[in-house]
């Protein structure tokens, strides 16, 4: 099966300093990949390059024809002046040119999927962090993306609220959505993700199946990381 997303040797510098080098990834349909690593290792940069939020200085990036990419931010970035439903319908109407009624219907279904149909008419300020992040996921979903990118989707949330968001992402994975996640929720990585890319100092330090990442005979650097995150 053809890859939805292919990155080949991506590199990025900020002010002359390399923050990411030689990043490669091939994402087939239904694949679930986690980018792990310490802060400043370049994982968010890699994700932003995949989303087209930043442009790479080196390498190549290609997307399967007609494959849209959805992006979920750590800080949600909901539009504060719009209700949850309007957050979802905006792009449907303005980018995809749907009629208001059709856009509302599709947005409603997306909010339903994340369990927030009852909060459709609330503004972001009236939502909890977990609810806001689920609206952000619905906003990305209603554009019917082929791949979802999550940039630390639960890092701004308390552990309980984080679980409610991770449940939604898990359900997405179960129905076959391809996704790339930057996250520190290793428990979630262990039970949902197929492949782990471990970044350090802007390079892919280790990559392999999730089971190997958590295996007792993983390299010492990986063991240290896993143990620190499970403490």
């Amino acid at each position, binding site marked *: 099966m053809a890859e939805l997303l292919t990155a080949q040797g991506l590199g990025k510098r900020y002010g002359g300093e390399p923050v990411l080098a030689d990043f490669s990834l091939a994402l087939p349909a239904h694949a679930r990949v986690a980018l792990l690593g310490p802060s400043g290792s370049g994982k968010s940069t890699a994700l932003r390059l995949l989303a087209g939020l930043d442009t790479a200085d080196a390498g190549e990036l290609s997307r399967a024809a007609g494959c849209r990419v*959805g992006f979920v931010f750590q800080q949600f*970035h909901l*539009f504060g002046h719009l209700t949850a439903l309007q957050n979802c319908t905006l792009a449907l109407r*303005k980018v995809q040119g749907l009629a208001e009624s059709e856009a509302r219907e599709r947005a409603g279904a997306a909010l339903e999927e994340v369990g927030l149909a009852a909060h459709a008419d609330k503004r972001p300020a009236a939502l909890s962090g977990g609810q806001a992040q689920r609206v952000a996921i619905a906003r990305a979903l209603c554009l019917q993306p082929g791949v979802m990118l999550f940039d630390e989707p639960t890092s701004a949330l308390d552990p309980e609220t984080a679980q409610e968001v991770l449940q939604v992402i898990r359900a997405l994975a179960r129905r076959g959505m391809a996704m790339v996640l930057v996250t520190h929720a290793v428990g979630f990585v262990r039970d949902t993700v197929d492949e782990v890319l471990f970044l350090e100092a802007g390079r892919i330090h280790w990559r392999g199946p999730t089971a190997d990442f958590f295996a007792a005979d993983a390299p010492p650097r990986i063991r240290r990381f896993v143990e620190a995150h499970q403490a």
Partner: protein
Amino acid sequence: MSAGWRPWATLGPLLLAAGLLGLLVAAVMGMDYHWRWSALGPHLISEQVESLRPPQAGTVRSVAPLQIELRDGSHWQCADCQAVEGLQIGAPVWPEDRVAERRGWHIGLLLQGLGLTVQVSLLAILVSIPPGLALALLRMQRAAPLRRLGIALIEIIRGTPLLVQIFLFYFLVGTLLGLERMTAGIVALSLFTAAYVAEIVRAAIESVPRGQWEAAQVLGLNRRQALQHVILPQALPRMLPALGGQFILLIKDSSLLSVIALTDLTKAGREIIAATFAPFEVWLAVAALYLCLTLSLGALVRHWERRFGVARG
């Protein structure tokens, strides 16, 4: 420090104000100034009595309503007038006779000036917004030449006195394009304001978090759509307080238009002083009228702030 009532916080400014007022009164008394507030009256609003005379000689046929049969057989009458006392049916009247009077309200020069100031200010505020927005967007362009053009225009306008701009605009541009005084004045005032509006708009747009642009971008909105549907609606509440302040400045700056012979509130004041020799009364009245305008605008802006101030955080 206790958080209770601090007498000096309230009393201090009051005492200071009272002291200053006392000094002013003492100074004026020392000048032996003769206050004549009544001189202001006719320049605000006054009842005017218009005397009416028949066009030809004739005979009074009815008093209420007044009807006079003229010598040529036609009838002369007036509806909203009152026959003078003592006029009797059958009495002969001549063209120079004052047969009736009509009472009406006359808007004085001061209120006419106020009206012009309001008109000029409101129009200038409205006209200043589109070029202000355009300058802000020009100033924020990625392409350096456009951005520099925006910066240059803003700096030129902000760096030269409004008075000079009004002269230049009226005598140079106004003459070239054949603009009326009023139009030239409004346009000069609004271009001046537009430069400040541009910086207020830019600051407000830049205060909207970057994440909002990025969220719009990943949803597929282009820059224009992001600006229109995501950024500007959230920037508007942030620019309202500063815009309100700028428009209050505009109302006060409109007094400079008197230099191109527009009889605004300030020029009306000067003309009334020339006629009444009551400068203190007139200037205090002029100041009070400006204050009414600026306080009203301030209240309106605060009302809008409360209404639109929903999109924070």
